């Protein structure tokens, strides 16, 4: 397994270079260093001198990919792409265009993101599995058919509707929790409960419907019939025989997102005023802060690769027949 993981990590390098290149190209297709300078300097009284000064101080006074004025290797190294990329691979994210240390910001903002994303993820998965198993228990009945209709209905509703509807009903009309905000202390639960509830409910439709399909397929297997004929209770059959045998496809979809929970939720954090990495990314895009956008995409790519490796490892845990070679 060790050799497999090392090999996967080596494969990750060209992927990360590609992601970085793509981010760079996409960003500079719509933004020029001059646009970035203006965005930071403001809209008024901006002189050409001020723009040039900003570019020089922030390292954007070089060509993007190829420096014709230099010869040899420096024609490549004396470019914006090289100077901005090489530090990333040493996990040195540097400073945002407005001068703040990105590593410090990420370290500060990851906790609110995790405080929201982890419970939403854990409760959501568990709820979806339980609901799906419950529906499977009544397979073929009116309850099963009604549940499928309900799941499709829940899937069809926009995520924004859940958020705004939840805020309107629970926070505005019923006044049960604060409508937005965050507290880094023990009182954080007060602010997190509503986004977690909304996150879980909004995921039930798609999650439970998918798991139901997986569980139904397993529930027709011979070993389930055998378990039932042995007189095991339905609860035991569902949790000890159906669920473990349906785990591989569940793990495929679930484990890969676990590291990405760290990145937070763009929309949820913005609506609920949670100062996590999701809103950090959104703010940076709006401010044309390339340093932060690039760093966050890079971190996201690393986490995704880690997620994929963890998924492979989890297969060996869920199914002992699987070997990583």
């Amino acid at each position, binding site marked *: 397994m060790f050799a497999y993981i090392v090999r996967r990590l080596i494969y990750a390098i060209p992927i990360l270079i590609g992601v970085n290149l793509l981010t760079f190209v996409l960003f500079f297709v719509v933004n020029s260093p001059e646009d970035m300078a203006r965005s*930071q300097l*403001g809209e008024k009284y901006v002189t*050409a001198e001020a*723009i040039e000064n900003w570019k020089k101080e922030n390292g954007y006074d070089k060509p993007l990919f190829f420096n014709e004025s230099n010869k040899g290797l420096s024609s490549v190294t004396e470019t914006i792409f090289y100077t901005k990329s090489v530090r990333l691979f040493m996990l040195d994210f540097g*400073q945002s265009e*407005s001068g703040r240390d990105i590593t410090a910001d990420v370290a500060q903002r990851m906790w609110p993101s995790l405080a929201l994303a982890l419970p939403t993820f854990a409760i959501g998965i568990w709820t979806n599995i339980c609901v799906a198993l419950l529906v499977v228990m009544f397979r073929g009945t009116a309850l099963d058919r009604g549940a499928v209709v309900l799941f499709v209905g829940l899937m069809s509703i926009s995520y924004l509707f859940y958020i*705004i509807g939840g805020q309107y009903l629970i926070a505005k009309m019923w006044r*049960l929790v604060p409508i937005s905000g965050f507290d880094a202390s023990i009182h954080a639960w007060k602010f997190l409960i509503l986004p977690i509830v909304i996150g879980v409910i909004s995921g039930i439709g798609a999650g439970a419907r998918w798991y139901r399909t997986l569980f139904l397929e397993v529930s027709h297997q011979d070993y389930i019939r055998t378990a039932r004929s042995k007189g095991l209770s339905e609860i035991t059959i569902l949790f000890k025989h159906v669920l473990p045998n349906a785990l591989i496809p569940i793990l495929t979809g679930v484990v890969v997102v676990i590291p990405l929970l760290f990145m937070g939720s763009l929309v949820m954090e913005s*609506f609920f005023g949670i100062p996590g990495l999701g809103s950090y990314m959104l703010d940076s895009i709006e401010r044309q802060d390339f340093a932060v956008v690039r760093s966050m995409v890079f971190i996201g790519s690393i986490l995704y690769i880690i997620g994929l490796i963890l998924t492979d490892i989890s297969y060996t845990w869920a199914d002992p027949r699987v070997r990583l070679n």
Partner: protein
Amino acid sequence: MRLSLISVVIAIALQLVACGDVYNNPYTSVSDDKIIYYSHFQEPPKHLDPAISYASDESLFISQIYEPPLGYHFLKRPYVLKTMAASEVPEITPLNADMEKVEEGSDQIAFTRFTIRIEPELRYQPHPAFAKKSDGSPLYIFENAASSENFKVIADFPETSSRLVHANDFIYQIKRLADPKNKSPMLGFMAQYIVGMREFSQQLGKIERNGWVNLDNHDMEGLEVIDDNTYSILINGSYPQFTYWLALHFFAPVPPEVDQFFHNPGFKEKNLTLDWYPVGTGAFMMTKNDPNSQIVLERNPNFRLEYYPKEGEEGDRELGYLEDAGKQIPFVDKAIFSLEKELLPMWTKFLQGYYDRSGEGHSNTHKFFDQAFVIGPNGLEMSEEMKSHDLTVTTESKPGTHYYGFNMLDPVLGGYTEERRKLRQALSIAFNIEDEIDIFHKGTSLPAHSPIPPGIPGYLEGEEGINPYVYDWVDGAPKRKPIEHAKKLLAEAGYPNGREAKTGKPLTIYLDVQARATTPDKQDWQRQQFEKLGVQLEFRSTDWNRFREKLLTGNTQIYTHGWLADYPDPENFLFLLYSPESPLICKCDGANNSNYANDEYDALFEKMRVMEPSPEREAIVAQMLDILRRDAVWMTGYHPLDNYLNNPWLFNAKRHGISKTFLKYVRVDSELRRQKRADWNQPVIWPVVTLGIFVILLFIPAVRAYRRRQNMTIH
């Protein structure tokens, strides 16, 4: 079992209701022993360094902390300057090329010296940068990052101190504006005026840096410390508007030891910077800066004695703005600003009493206009729901103008011939800005008759203030000229019925807009305006970067733009059409996006801008406005009016169009707020109880079915 479960749920619900407490209070760790002002902000500030910050969202905070030499009178309108850090109005000395004093208005003026005397008792807020060892050297200066690793935020420094402000601190800050490392947005602009600034900046750009550079060791030609409380700034030529710049935070004092403190090794990596932790002399100091969540300002214990103004404009007494006249300020001990990006939570918290007013930098009532206001027989009225909250309204006339401009270099619409003027005038008449204001701004703006908005010298009320090329004065009010007149002008311009006379081709005009600033319904309406003349309108909407690029390269036909004044002088609006400000002429981000070039106008502008306010100057302004109206450089425009709502416990909530220094004037009735919050936020429990009972009832048949299934036997 069913009965017992239901009784448990009901019992819990009754317990919750019996508590009588509110559950939705977002302020979890706030003690009641202080008078607190609660508000919000929509955009996290990027910069709080007075040399760098130049956004209204940021001035919301730093205007309470930093004190430039001058400020604005809180109540008086039109806007009036007053002293702030200065003890008296700056002394202005015109000088000739030999640095000898000459008369005001003399054509020999080569320089102007501004001599500023500061308040002798002006003292900084407590801060660790001022803490000293027994030998008098700074306490918190570290040799390397490792020795300061235990200090992560300002609150980690146990020792603080303060000192009186010196004249040199103001000089030091101006040098900071010039330091290219600080990337001040003011550098390029101010270097045109302050003597020696450009050379000083170039000199600093060349020095080797290894840590803090003490700017006191580098001299800048135009600056002089006369004594501990007096300094002077020398500017090129005559520029009376420089006085207004002295009311901006760029000219507030920054002590060298604070600059040195924040240049400690390893501080920047922890975001311990002056850009994040402002240090000032104002009524408030920042004690918590988490711009992604909450910013807290607290009363500066070293703030000097200052009193609420005893005079205001007409009507202020009736509105209650003079009830606190002569009392010592500030009235509040603390201000908590929470980040609120989305409007629904912001508006909800305001109505629940968790914010004292509906907006700070932006009037958020627009988005909730139908809920907040109704159009009654007497015009705009507060809705019944808002009245039941006893809310008050503050209207702010912003010193700004939004406009539709013609590109004077455009081969179809531009140019200065009579035909082109008539073409532009015809389009101006057809485009009914009053309708746009009613439909899209819900009546809360004023049609613009010139670039100058109300409250700025040069704005005229009544018949003499209207644009006579677009309006007639009828029954004591301006009335848009009939569309037939516009059709006649269009025909005279060579486009009868909206078609080119020679070829018969329809006249098609392109409007360049930012994609985010337009909507399909607005575009439909805009098309209809030109269709009245048979003219076709096409839209070229792009993102902001591309839109700006078009303006910079003169690649527009009609465009929309806006301007918010930095200071209340007509010069700050009329320069928008001064030809050297054209981006194509200055090769910079000039403000004359219409690329208007009129020698007569330019000559009048050059004369007017160096004049002190006087009737003669106002006459020149009127003459310039006549030229602009005749040339129809801007198609139309409006001056924004914003309505802000205040909860009933907030007093002295008057808005100032230019200055954001308001916090030291506002007063809060904390007891009334506590009562209202309790009244307005009683939780509604029954839906949760009902839902709980419903879920339980749902489970009962499921459990029964499960049991039946488990006990099923095969016969």
